[in-house]
């Protein structure tokens, strides 16, 4: 930990106000970079296709990831399965810039997450609420994102997770200091992390929105709810005009309170991803890893 962990948290700070896009090929990575992505997430299949295909979904082929690393100058992230530290070791060996220990892939361990303090490369993890976020941070995550519900194009869960996180932070900020011990016990996290939230009214690491972002308005909504940046997965390359949509979402994140600009950005984007409603899905990925 120590110095390396600080550097890893600081890389996430550099990504703020930006959009991280899921890509499956070097060509898509190039499109994402040209559209203004601040990082790309290399994966074999985007969440919507993982949902459609079913079966076990795993870390991507390192060769494919290398191809993407060679194509773009922005940071390259990749996903490993929850608890699969051997996959994480492989991603570290190919010098990935960020590992996403992700509920989008099939979990490899239904009890333990990866001990991320063992690694030099940074990790981002999904969280539905403050307790999950602080537990992941305690394990060594240097960036948090909402879980949302990946591959659905439905923003409702990301909104729910961000609101839950915000209200828990507001509650802890307003607490008397002597009540924080009990709160730490309830959330199953170390007292020091609760104390940090109490004093600073925010998470100790950068917090992005993810899971269900499909339009510039979705991105602006999440930013106004307090996200420091946005992940867009299936929303871009499952839409009618990926390049235009990607670029519009990037600009909406920069000017997220400027409704006039976002109105212009939202015009004529072609078809959005079809999407699935929350009630229609069989598999709730957000339930994986708590």
């Amino acid at each position: 930990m120590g110095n390396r962990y600080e550097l890893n948290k600081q890389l996430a700070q550099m990504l703020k106000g930006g959009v991280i896009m899921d890509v499956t090929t070097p060509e898509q990575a190039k499109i994402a970079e040209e559209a203004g992505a601040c990082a790309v997430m290399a994966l074999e299949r985007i969440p919507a296709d993982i949902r459609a295909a079913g079966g076990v979904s795993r870390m991507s082929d390192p060769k494919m990831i290398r191809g993407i690393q060679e194509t773009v100058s922005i940071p390259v992230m990749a996903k490993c399965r929850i608890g699969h530290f051997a996959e994480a070791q492989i991603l570290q060996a190919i010098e990935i810039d960020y590992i996403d220990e992700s509920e989008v892939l099939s979990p490899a361990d239904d009890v333990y997450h990866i001990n991320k303090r063992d690694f030099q490369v940074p990790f981002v993890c999904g969280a539905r609420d403050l307790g999950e976020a602080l537990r992941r941070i305690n394990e060594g995550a240097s960036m948090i994102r909402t879980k949302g519900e990946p591959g659905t194009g439905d923003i409702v869960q990301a909104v729910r997770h961000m609101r839950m996180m915000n209200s828990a932070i507001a509650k802890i900020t307003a607490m008397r200091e002597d009540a924080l011990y009990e709160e730490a016990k309830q959330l199953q996290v170390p007292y020091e992390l609760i104390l940090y939230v109490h004093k600073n009214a925010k998470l100790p690491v950068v917090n992005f929105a993810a899971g269900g972002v499909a339009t510039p308005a979705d991105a602006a909504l999440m930013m106004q709810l307090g996200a420091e940046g946005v992940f867009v997965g299936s929303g871009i390359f499952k839409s009618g005009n990926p390049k235009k949509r990607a670029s519009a979402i990037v600009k909406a994140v920069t000017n997220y309170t400027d409704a006039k600009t976002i109105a212009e950005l939202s015009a004529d984007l072609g078809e959005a991803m079809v999407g699935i409603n929350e009630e229609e899905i069989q598999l709730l990925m957000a339930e994986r890893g708590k």
Partner: protein
Amino acid sequence: MKIGILAVQGAFAEHEAVLDALNINYTEIRSIRDLQQTFDGFILPGGESTVQGKLLHELHLFAPMRQLIADGMPVLATCAGMILLAQTIEGQDTAYFATIPITVRRNAYGRQLGSFHTECKYRGIGKIPMTFIRAPYVTQACDEVSILSTVEEHIVAVRYQNQIALSFHPELDYDYRLHQAFLELCKQ
């Protein structure tokens, strides 16, 4: 005094925290409307230079900001900001503001595993903490460019006219001396 902080993407909030601590007024620059006021200096923060460069053009900030910088507006540029100011970027044909005659190498220390923290001498100030995050460095500088700091033989800080460009991030280290030196420049 008022500083304009480019806020299209990246770690601009960290610079704002430094200016807050020093009790200095600032405005975030996100759209052309924000440029209607007068500024005494600009800060170009860390982040991704490809994103910032693209947004500068698309939000119509590029031409007016470049003109102001070329006309002598003091600038403090960190990391991605250094890339925006460099006349030449290795491996690509185009540059951004191109107002400092230097050549820079993007991600010069490699990927995130190459990011590091150190302390090194900075001309006129002394030893300061330096945090490098997927940082660039300067591979060539014209004679008119003053070199303010080198780390292991690589140029990491330069000044050219009123522009200061740094490979590292003073805004991450709670050491305000570089910002103070920049603010002195803005007062003149």
